[in-house]
């Protein structure tokens, strides 16, 4: 291991351990064959645990009608089974949900490798067990070694029995404990003879073959070895966690090269065994795609996908490499990954010409430095490829066959015409053209067909002896050979060019869809948009319905769908939730709830899971090019969702920050504006107390006056704050009475003039003015606030002009000052709370509440308030003045004649 400092605990190992915390413990009773006594051993141990006080529940145990086993079940709590209807038959299955609801300390589930009845949540029981473990329940189970995925080939070779029920090796190696139930083969055969081993009646012949002594010995060895390996693994795990150096595969790394043929899966299993042999070395399964070669047939793609999936189940990393030079691509990858062992299949026998070049194993051997090469022979498996190829030709050929017939027919026509006019012309050339055309248009096989047809018809109609198949001149044979030669060359070439073009077109379209998707995804503003765009883009790529689910309140809920947001039934929602919680694909084509009509993929963002996307089942072949495009799209979508979420968070954060700022400014302002008058009151009072006797009479009186003024000022601030609180709290009640606005204005001017005796106020009222329904107290306060503002912001000598007039439906009050005016940009905001033109003025214009209170009061009475500035001056003399207009609605519009 070159990249790790072994003296420190390995983070991966610690992480694996951390993941186990809170997870239930798995114990597997491992045996070499049925009948060794796994179940009874498990039940005996469980009874012991139960007697010690542990809560033990039997989830499912097959007694196979044997009384000994049934006796062991006595006294143990057995969970009722679930009944599943399947094609009219009732199947008794393990009830996973009941077990999860029950949550015992220890649950017994027999037969780890069992396949569940169709319609269950998981297809396999080991997946049920995994869910139980995740829920924190300890599980004991039983397993025969022949059911291990990586041993299927070996067991098949040993016993001739092909196991259908398998568990992935990871399901065994993740066990916390393995107990090997070992008896000698002879003992087992004795038990079989005594009828102590359950064998289905129908299979007794096969069982006899299976239970042969030599088979059992081989299986026993497998079981012993596997148990030993697991013990090794656990030891290594312990040592890595504690940072001890140990005997595990130092720097070993295995690369398994697979093709898209029947041998692929077998190679993967071989890789796993080699990895096991050299101490659980990391291994990678790779397939090399050659862009210049024809795209793989669907069947081949399936095979490749299946092999890669198997590899992942067996714990390998998988990758698809791309490169025209097979040898160079593999060697490059091997060098980068420090591969020490390469596993590959023996190449098929090749054409003579190809044999002149070195075979792949030879080339790899020459090129690789230091890597060991394992070449695995097939067992006649490659033969299964033959029918595939034939079908391929036919499917592509129908158009070609037609063209071949037509082209050769046309050649016959042309040749007969030419033959009329110039006997002895080289008619063979015309037939050659028909072969060429077919070859260029439809590839090799149609071209060969055309060549054959051309040879036959040319010979029959145009070569002496005519209308006979006999060949008059041996040189004609050469002509026919040329036909076939041309067919092979042009057909082969054209076929390859066409396949390349198709592949290139497909890649281009994939890249284009990704580009389009990334463009539209990068433009989204929020999560909802991102979800909708993602649903649309994936629907286009999958050419089927899609749905995107986003988290909401700890759950996932449908956020968008294409062509429309679908209704998901309970099972589909369960699958979606599964994908969301586990981060694994669920639904059709996966190991979880495969019976539903959707496949759900988790949307894994850079930081967290962003949601779940569902694709209508059957649209996407797993492992296909389309799936890869889809996954790339989903990746982009997840990142876009995440980005939208972050952006939303940033906006929220900014809003919060601003309101914090506002609150701080408010507190500062209130504390200053309340304390300044208090300071004067307290300061003047204490001066009077301490030095009252020694002060001049005038000073004495002035101090008393200042106390009164400042107390009034304080009262106004408090009044303002209370008004504002009432406005904001909705506690403001307006009291309507018939009001003459002129009286109210006069009252307001009086109040303000008392505090600003030097200030001149001009009044401009009409002799007649309609009365309105209004609250005179509120209106007076609103006007006072505006007047005070005008006093504070205009030079002392300038008058403040107050006017009132009416139009048809409103009374308008106008208050103008000659101050420096308000910048246009500020105009809209002068009625905002805590808005002051001079940020840090301490001169006591109030907390910046006055105008906003005016606005609140006027609006509470159904009126409107607006400001205009500047109202006088020009660019030369400078702009001046502010005008504030209050407009209050009349009860009834006045007739124009009366105005």
């Amino acid at each position: 291991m070159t990249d790790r400092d072994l003296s420190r605990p390995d983070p991966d190992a610690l992480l694996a351990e951390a993941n186990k915390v809170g997870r239930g413990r798995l114990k597997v009773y491992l045996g070499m064959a049925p009948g060794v006594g796994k179940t009874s051993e498990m039940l005996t141990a469980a009874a012991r645990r139960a007697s010690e006080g542990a809560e033990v529940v039997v989830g499912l145990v097959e007694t196979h009608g044997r009384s000994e086993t049934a006796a062991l079940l006595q006294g143990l709590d057995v969970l009722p089974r679930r009944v599943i209807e399947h094609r009219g038959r009732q199947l008794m299955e393990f009830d996973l949900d009941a077990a999860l609801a029950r949550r015992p300390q220890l649950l017994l589930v027999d037969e780890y490798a069992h396949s569940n009845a169709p319609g269950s949540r998981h297809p396999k029981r080991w997946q049920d067990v995994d869910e139980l473990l995740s829920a924190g329940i300890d599980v004991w189970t039983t397993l025969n070694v022949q059911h291990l995925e990586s041993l299927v080939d070996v067991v098949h070779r040993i016993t001739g029995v092909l196991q259908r029920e398998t568990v992935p090796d990871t399901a065994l190696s993740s066990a916390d404990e393995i107990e090997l139930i070992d008896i000698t083969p002879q003992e087992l055969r004795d038990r079989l003879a005594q009828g102590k081993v359950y064998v289905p009646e129908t299979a007794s012949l096969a069982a006899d073959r299976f239970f042969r002594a030599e088979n059992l010995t081989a299986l026993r060895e497998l079981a012993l070895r596997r148990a030993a390996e697991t013990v090794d693994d656990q030891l290594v795990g312990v040592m890595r966690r504690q940072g001890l150096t140990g005997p595990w595969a130092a720097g070993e790394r295995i690369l398994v090269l697979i093709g898209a043929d029947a041998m692929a899966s077998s190679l993967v299993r071989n890789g796993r065994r080699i990895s096991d042999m050299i101490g659980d070395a990391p291994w990678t399964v790779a397939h090399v795609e050659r862009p210049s070669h024809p795209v793989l047939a669907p069947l081949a793609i399936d095979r490749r996908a299946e092999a890669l999936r198997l590899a992942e189940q067996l714990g390998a990393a998988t990758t698809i490499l791309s490169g025209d030079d097979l040898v160079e691509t593999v060697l490059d990858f091997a060098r980068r990954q420090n591969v020490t062992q390469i596993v590959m299949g023996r190449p098929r026998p090749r054409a003579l010409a190809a044999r002149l070049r070195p075979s792949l194993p030879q080339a790899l051997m020459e090129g690789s430095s230091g890597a060991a090469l394992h070449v695995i022979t097939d067992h006649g498996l490659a033969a299964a490829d033959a029918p595939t190829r034939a079908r391929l030709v036919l499917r592509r050929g129908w158009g070609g066959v037609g063209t071949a017939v037509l082209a050769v027919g046309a050649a016959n026509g042309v040749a007969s015409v030419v033959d009329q006019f110039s006997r002895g012309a080289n008619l063979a050339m015309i037939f050659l053209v028909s072969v060429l055309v077919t070859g260029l248009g439809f590839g090799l096989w149609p071209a060969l067909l055309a060549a054959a047809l051309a040879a036959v018809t040319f010979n029959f109609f145009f070569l002496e002896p005519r209308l006979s198949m006999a060949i008059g001149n041996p040189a004609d044979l050469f002509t026919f050979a040329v036909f076939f030669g041309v067919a092979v060359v042009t057909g082969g070439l054209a076929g390859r060019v066409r396949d390349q073009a198709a592949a290139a077109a497909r890649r281009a379209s994939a890249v284009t869809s990704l580009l389009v998707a990334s463009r539209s995804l990068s433009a989204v503003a929020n999560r909802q948009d991102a979800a909708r765009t993602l649903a649309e883009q994936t629907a286009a790529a999958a050419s089927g319905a899609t749905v995107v689910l986003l988290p909401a309140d700890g759950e996932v809920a449908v956020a968008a769908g294409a062509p429309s947001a679908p209704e998901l039934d309970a099972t589909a929602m369960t699958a979606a939730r599964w994908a969301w919680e586990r981060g694994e694909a669920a639904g059709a084509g996966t190991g979880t709830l495969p019976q539903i009509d959707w496949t759900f993929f988790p949307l894994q963002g850079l930081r967290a899971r962003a949601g779940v996307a569902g694709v209508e089942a059957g649209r996407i072949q797993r492992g296909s090019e389309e799936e890869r495009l889809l996954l790339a799209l989903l990746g982009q979508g997840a990142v876009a969702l995440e980005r939208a979420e972050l952006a939303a968070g940033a906006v929220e954060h900014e809003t919060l920050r601003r309101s914090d700022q506002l609150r701080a400014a408010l507190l500062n302002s209130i504390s200053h504006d309340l304390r300044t008058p208090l300071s004067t009151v307290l300061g003047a009072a204490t001066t009077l107390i301490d030095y009252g006797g020694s002060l001049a009479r005038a000073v004495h009186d002035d101090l008393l006056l200042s106390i009164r003024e400042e107390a009034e000022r304080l009262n106004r601030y408090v009044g303002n704050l209370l008004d504002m609180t009432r406005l904001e709290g909705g506690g403001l009640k307006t009291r309507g009475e018939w009001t003459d606005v002129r009286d109210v204005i006069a009252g307001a001017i009086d109040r303000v003039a008392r505090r600003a005796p030097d200030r001149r106020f001009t009044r401009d009222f009409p002799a007649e003015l309609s009365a309105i329904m209004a609250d005179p107290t509120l209106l007076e306060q609103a006007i006072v606030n505006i007047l005070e503002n005008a006093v504070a912001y205009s030079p002392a000598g300038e008058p403040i002009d107050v006017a009132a007039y009416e139009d048809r439906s409103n009374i308008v009050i106008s208050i103008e000052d000659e101050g420096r005016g308000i910048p246009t940009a500020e105009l809209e905001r002068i009625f905002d709370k805590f808005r002051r033109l001079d940020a840090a003025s301490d001169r006591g214009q109030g907390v910046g509440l006055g105008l906003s209170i005016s606005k609140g009061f006027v609006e509470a009475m159904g009126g409107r308030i607006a400001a205009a500035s500047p109202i006088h001056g020009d660019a030369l003399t400078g702009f001046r003045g502010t005008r504030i207009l209050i407009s209050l609605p009349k009860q009834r519009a006045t007739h124009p004649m009366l105005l």
Partner: protein
Amino acid sequence: MTASRPRILVIDDEPQIHRFLTPALDAAGYEPVRADTGAAGLSEIAKQPPDAVILDLGLPDMDGQDVLRSARAFYDGPLIILSARDRELEKIKALDNGADDYVEKPFGVGELLARLRVALRNRMVRDVGEPSVSAGDVEIDLVKRVVRKAGAPVRLSPREYDLLATLVEGRGRVITHRQLLTAVWGPANADDVQYLRVFMGHLRQKLEDDPASPRWLMTEPGVGYRFVGDV
């Protein structure tokens, strides 16, 4: 005290403050000088350095902290901060910037004048370079580095002595945590207020009659400590 009355410059933009402070200072035997802006205050200090400055932190033309920093560049006399900002950080910043003391608005005139007296007296003591300071029955000789309580020598660790000496040298003034830590432990420890608590506890145990309610070594909560000597 000289024949002329001590000149006290009041820098505050609030006319109401001058309105009572001017007669109060006058009645207490000082000569009040009024400045309404930071700039006017600074130019007054430069023209004719007053005996003490009372400075409001909230000024219309410039920040009070800036006035303080500028003034301290050429003015060494007592400087008392007047502020409605009751936030600790402002106070600490002002003291760190060289203010002698602070008074929060609203305030009684009596309190302000008492602080003013302490500040003026300490300045005078420092100018004379008085080597020995007493507080009740505690006597501190800064030259001989000897501390006595009720006539008996008190054993202080070097750190404890340095801390006490720093407080005594700035007697009457609030010395901020940062100033104390920097002076005694060095700039690297300027934030370790916990040290101070422990050492102040030791000093009080050794010097105060009742360490639980100290009379000489006073705490300014959240800001620092102050040594109060005999008036």
